[in-house]
């Protein structure tokens, strides 16, 4: 195996010259392929198990579709943010770090911390190919640690959950619900003090969802339950656009 030593220029600020190199594209598409394979294997395993736990095939398909529909809004927002960051990181790094594995806020912050450690900053005159490569390495290592911890902790937590389920089924029934509600209350409340627009949008988004769920119940429109999240995001972000540009 012999890699052609790619021509890099440590002081050049032409980030795309190295950031869009074919090998980086190959790795990025490789991560996509791995996730596709994982998805197929998981869906097959879930389909095989479902009929034995009183879950008809209809519900399995419904869950897949509901997840797909619900993620349209969030995915498009990730796409918009990713496009905005192309100039900084090039397409392959944006696809893997912003689009997958991490999230825009974490990864941009990591890259910025790495750049600062070299006396530079993202996007400035000092943001050279060398700074980009170090930032990319640092954010990838940090993302790798997340995965490593998941790989190491999940089996341990699974054993803990199993023994708890045996000794205390009531606790096992309560824990996921309480954890979920705790996480989302905190994530929602953290948005409110950011600005008056943020607060208004939280309320608009919550009210739209309440309305759609109410309508779905009254009209017995199951599809509306699946689309409600997408509609609520659309209404709220449009309101945000109007207030922001007003």
């Amino acid at each position: 195996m012999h890699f052609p030593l790619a021509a890099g220029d440590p002081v050049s600020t032409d980030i795309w010259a190295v950031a869009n190199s074919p090998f980086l594209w190959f790795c990025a598409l490789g991560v996509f392929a791995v996730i596709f394979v994982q998805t197929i294997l998981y869906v097959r395993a879930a389909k095989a198990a479902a009929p034995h736990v009183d879950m008809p095939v209809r519900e399995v398909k419904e869950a897949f579709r509901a997840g797909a529909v619900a993620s349209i809004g969030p995915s498009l927002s990730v796409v918009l943010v990713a496009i905005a960051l192309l100039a900084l990181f090039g397409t392959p790094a944006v696809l893997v770090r912003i689009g997958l594995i991490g999230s825009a806020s974490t990864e941009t912050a990591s890259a910025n911390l790495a750049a600062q450690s070299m006396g530079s900053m993202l996007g400035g005159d000092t943001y050279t190919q060398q700074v980009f490569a170090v930032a990319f390495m640092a954010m990838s290592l940090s993302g790798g640690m997340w995965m490593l911890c998941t790989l190491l902790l999940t089996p341990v937590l699974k054993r803990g959950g199993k023994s708890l389920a045996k000794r205390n089924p009531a606790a096992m029934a309560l824990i996921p619900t309480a954890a979920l509600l705790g996480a989302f209350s905190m994530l929602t409340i953290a948005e409110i003090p950011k600005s008056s627009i943020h607060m208004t949008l939280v309320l608009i988004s919550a009210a739209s969802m309440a309305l759609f769920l109410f309508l779905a119940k009254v009209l017995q429109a199951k599809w509306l339950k699946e689309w409600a999240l997408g509609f609520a995001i659309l209404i709220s972000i449009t309101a945000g656009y109007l207030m922001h540009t007003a």
Partner: protein
Amino acid sequence: MSSPAMTTADASMARFEQQTTRYGSLTMTAGLILSLLGPIYLVFFTDLDISPSMIWVAFAAVAATFGIFWFVEPLTYFPILGSAAMYQAFMIGNISNKLLPAAIVAQSAINAKPGTRRGDLASVMAIGGAATVHLTSLLVFVGIFGSWLVSIIPNDMIEVARIYILPSLMGAVLVQAIVAMKQVRPTIVAIVLSLTMYFVVIPLVPSLALFGTALVVLFSIIVSWIVRDRKAVHTPVAD
């Protein structure tokens, strides 16, 4: 307790967990390696004059801020996701703003509770659906048309999406989660704890801000357990 039907259910869930653990850890390891190969190539095979100390200093700077999340996030999300979905979530990313909402929507669409078998299968399927949509839209809109779209999408729109997506999403997701769970006491506990954490505890002890969500999750579990409705009956096989 061990009717034949239940044994089949137990056996097939056991097989499901075994399969997802194997597939999940293998694919995640592959993803981990591929995600590191790119930057390794740049650092070692491109002529950029990068010294090991630059990498370590940069990594230390990132680790000082985010290192704690490497441990805290898997711990926080495990009770919600269950073991199978953990391997999906931490590779696909965007967990709180995309995957968990998708899982909640799917569970509420088929009236399944999180942590139950139907709930676990529903969230695995929902994350599968979300991943399919997400990978496709990334490949098409960022991978193929990204550099063209960046020239035609107004800056305003990208700015608005960046600043306001979270409030636009979270309000709706919280309402959907509350309605789907139908658990009055844990809901009140979670909201009161979050308000206390955000407006009382963090202003008093700012260094706790990084652990805010994890602490609220932990105390929501503990307090909800203390104030639980003791009349509710739970059989050992929770479903």
